[in-house]
């Protein structure tokens, strides 16, 4: 029964996808809709294959930017959280500005950054701005969620600050940290895309978002769809990879990674 349900859970979304694509294809063919208005799924796929040399290069550029932004967000978010945890005054002084950075829409910041920074740097900074906050706030939450009695135990045995951090606070914060990283992965991609689109009008970009903007100007709608498809697949893969890492790291002990039954 459960095996059947599992297969069903996998098959249902696929069936929905097939139905939607089939209906879309049918609609385009029956009404003879022109590709520059709405390309059929078949044409989008064909464009993906034909334009692969261009698109794959752009995909590489966007993924590299995302990765750089993600690493910066991870390192920056965790480092800031550790600093805040060690010094309350530092936290009081800086945390509001982290919030300001988070709530100001990155699309509004991007054009300014592009004025002051070289384009590649500006794109990475955008990816960092949207990505670091979930890492920071989740890690801070985790570092503050240490079991009180365990903290007392460390105190009883005269643990140093460094030992408490290494053996108690960091492991206790790990599940929260990984949750933050999982969000940051997707957000880094968004940040990279937003910055590329903002920069795209300046004409110096070559990432996927730039391709979308460029194809838009040229009314190459099938390529827009193909690039969009690639972006969304990239987002899914990033999320899946981070979820897998999280599962592998936590599977021995954390509730989130355990099955319903032990």
């Amino acid at each position, binding site marked *: 029964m459960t095996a059947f349900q599992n297969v069903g859970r996998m098959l249902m979304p696929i069936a929905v996808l097939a139905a939607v694509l089939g209906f879309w294809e049918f609609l385009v063919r029956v009404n003879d809709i022109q590709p520059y208005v709405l390309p059929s799924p078949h044409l989008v796929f064909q464009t993906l294959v034909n334009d692969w040399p261009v698109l794959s290069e752009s995909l590489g550029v966007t993924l590299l930017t995302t990765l750089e932004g993600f690493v910066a967000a991870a390192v920056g978010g965790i480092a800031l959280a550790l600093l805040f945890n060690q010094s309350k005054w530092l936290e009081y002084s800086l945390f509001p500005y982290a919030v300001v950075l988070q709530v100001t829409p990155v699309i509004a910041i991007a054009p300014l950054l592009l004025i002051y920074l070289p384009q590649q740097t500006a794109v990475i900074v955008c990816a960092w701005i949207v990505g670091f906050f979930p890492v920071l706030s989740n890690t801070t939450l985790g570092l503050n969620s240490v079991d009180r009695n365990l903290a007392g135990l460390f105190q009883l045995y*005269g643990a140093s600050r460094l030992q408490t951090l290494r053996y108690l606070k960091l492991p206790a914060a790990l599940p929260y940290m990984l949750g933050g990283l999982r969000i940051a992965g997707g957000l880094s991609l968004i940040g990279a895309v937003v910055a590329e689109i903002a920069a795209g009008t300046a004409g110096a970009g070559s990432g996927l978002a730039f391709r979308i903007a460029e194809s838009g100007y040229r009314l190459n709608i099938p390529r827009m769809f193909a690039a969009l498809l690639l972006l969304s697949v990239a987002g899914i893969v990033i999320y899946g990879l981070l979820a897998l890492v999280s599962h592998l790291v936590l599977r021995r002990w954390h509730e989130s990674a355990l099955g319903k039954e032990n």
Partner: protein
Amino acid sequence: MAEPVLSETDIDAAGLAMRLRAVTKTYDNGVAALGPLDLDVAKGEFVSLLGPSGCGKSTALRLIAGLSAPTSGTVNVSHHADRRDGRHPIGFVFQEPTLMPWASVRENVRLPLKLAHATSADGGGRIEQALAQVGLSEFADAYPRELSGGMKMRVSLARALVTDPDILLLDEPFAALDEITRFRLNNDLLDLWRKLHKTIIFVTHSVFESVYLSQRVLVMTGRPGRLASEFRITTAEPRGEAFRTSAEYAGYCREVSGALAPSYAGQRSA
């Protein structure tokens, strides 16, 4: 202060494990939790602190452990154990097992040695020894979540024993366990005490547990906690299940319960 404060060596000479004099604890929010409390505990003695919830039993334990400082009065604890190789004079067992869920049983037991930068990685075989003492040798590589409540408590006990402490402080360690498991752990704890000659202070709110285990039961009043009365349980060791059903045991329990009743007087609503 009427009596001169004894230094740690004086306590040692007097055969005491600890001496508390006029100890009080008032929390930052103004709640007077404890005292004034006077307490002498002899080396190797098994003493129970018995009282209603919130009477400051746990506070007293934390003061003895040095986890918090008294508001007034003095706490002297005999610091006998040499600190070499990760030894520590005090072992503490909390109400909950308080294990690190991310570490195996062995790593949890190793923790005190690791924090003390013990020179040998296994504390000279003391990790295996402590696990054997609580009967968990075969579960050294298991993770806490794979263990039952009673087994987790045993790990917690092994972790307290691994530093070879002189004094064991136990804060309602078996309160959350089912009765059969609690009885079994009671017996195991008594065995350990007879074998290892530790000084044990056992905090509990169970009259039956305190009488069964201790040589001396100290009944505490409601907040702020003071000593209301003291009972010596003179039944010869080793005690076993037969003691639990004896008339002598029932008699002690009746007496202690009678002394405890006033402590609950102010808490009718509970």
